[in-house]
């Protein structure tokens, strides 16, 4: 009984972590690109382009307004095309990545917008190219805010993995629903919830720790 519980939890955790790590990786990469485009094409910014800005804004709004559980279903054919299957954790990564990207895009956008215009002007004044401004000014200056935002996003991806779990992706969410809910195994339900709480807290602590370390190094008076 105890062994069985432990095995189930371990399997669930591994599947959840697998989905979480890969979809966070893709969503952060895509979200960073999206956020950068949104910021630099904004009015008065270094690569102002109203049409592109508007198009990406609409795209983000569109994807974000689709409830995630429906988005997964909509993306099943895409998952089959990319990873060859529409079942299990690997297929879920496709939907999770695409579903979380717009959210991350907005988070990156708001973090990068906090970088003062004066710093950007100083960079322009020394002859920095747009690419140099993005990678040597915007991102490093916004780093503490970016880390905090990405932490929030990864936690919400954790939530989404549970949603995906409900319709066949596996992981801890699926465990809680299949055993805890459908088979009335309250012990599994509680154990699963406990593991998820620990997982989310670990992510939060790690994110806070990194953000605080960067912030202190820059702003703490010696």
């Amino acid at each position, binding site marked *: 009984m105890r062994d069985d519980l432990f095995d189930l939890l371990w399997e669930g955790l591994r599947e959840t972590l697998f989905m979480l790590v890969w979809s966070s990786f893709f969503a952060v990469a895509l979200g960073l690109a999206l956020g950068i485009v949104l910021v630099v094409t904004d009015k008065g910014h270094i690569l102002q382009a109203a049409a592109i800005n508007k198009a990406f804004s609409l795209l983000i709004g569109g994807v974000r307004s689709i409830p995630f559980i429906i988005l997964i279903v909509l993306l099943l054919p895409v998952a089959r095309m990319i990873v060859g299957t529409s079942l299990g954790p690997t297929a879920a990564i496709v939907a999770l990545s695409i579903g979380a990207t717009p959210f991350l895009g907005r988070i990156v956008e708001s973090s990068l917008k906090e970088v*003062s215009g*004066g*710093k950007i*002007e*100083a*960079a*322009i*004044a*020394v*002859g*920095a*190219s747009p690419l*140099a401004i993005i990678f*040597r*000014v915007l991102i*490093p*200056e916004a*780093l503490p805010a970016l880390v905090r935002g990405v932490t929030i996003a990864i936690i919400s991806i954790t939530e989404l993995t549970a949603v995906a779990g409900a319709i066949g992706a596996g992981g801890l969410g699926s465990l809680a629903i299949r055993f805890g809910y459908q088979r009335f195994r309250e012990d599994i339900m509680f154990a699963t919830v406990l593991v998820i709480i620990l997982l989310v807290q670990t992510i939060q602590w790690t994110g806070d720790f990194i953000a605080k370390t*960067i912030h202190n*190094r*820059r*702003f*703490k*008076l*010696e």
Partner: protein
Amino acid sequence: MILVEQLSKTYQTTKGSILALDRIDLKVRKGEIFGVIGFSGAGKSTLIRCLNRLEEPDSGRIRIGEDEITQLKGKRLRQARQKIGMIFQHFNLLDGKTVYHNVAFPLAVAGHPRDRIRSRVREILDLVNLSDKEGAYPAQLSGGQKQRVGIARALANDPDVLLSDEATSALDPQTTFSILELLRDINRQLNLTIVLITHELEVLQHICDRMAVIESGRIVETGPVEKLFLNPESETARRFVGVLDQYRARRGIIEGMGAGI
């Protein structure tokens, strides 16, 4: 060195258009410290920001050295900007970089190799007297030290011209004085042309060779700095000098009273 001809700039706002610069003509000689003075909203900031095209003028011409600034685009403009240093009222340092990396930034952007960057940064930090702060972050510096870093950054690429946009306006009088002294030293040592804008008469008095007075987007008076004090012609210049005279007169009275008692 710097030639400005018929420079105009209009801002569009919701309440209509504002003429910020109205057919400005200006000549700055090589190696001089040229001051532009005016009250808030007179257009002095717009003028200096047009010189390196942080602000796009609507019409007119700007030439700095051999570069037709108003004709340049893209990479050529960026290369020209490397030879035009600029310092700012609020310093605009990068909080995420140490003093060393703030000063190295223009050099890294220009694509210099690492060891060349290192020797140049050390040299410049020595010039502005901040060698001991190499590893500090801007938040750990005083206002005067921050502006020294700003100056070091502006000088990193060995520019021909330095633009100073109210560089001492956020500093206390004593720090202002030390920054002005530093600018004058640099001007002499490097034969660097400096254009500064200010609303402080003391700044002109301390370091400028020649000046222009700007009023509602127009240059209303130009010439040697002494002329402004001895024979102010424009309304703005008279008001500036008038305020100063008033204080001098009052101080005279107070000191006189003291002597009498």
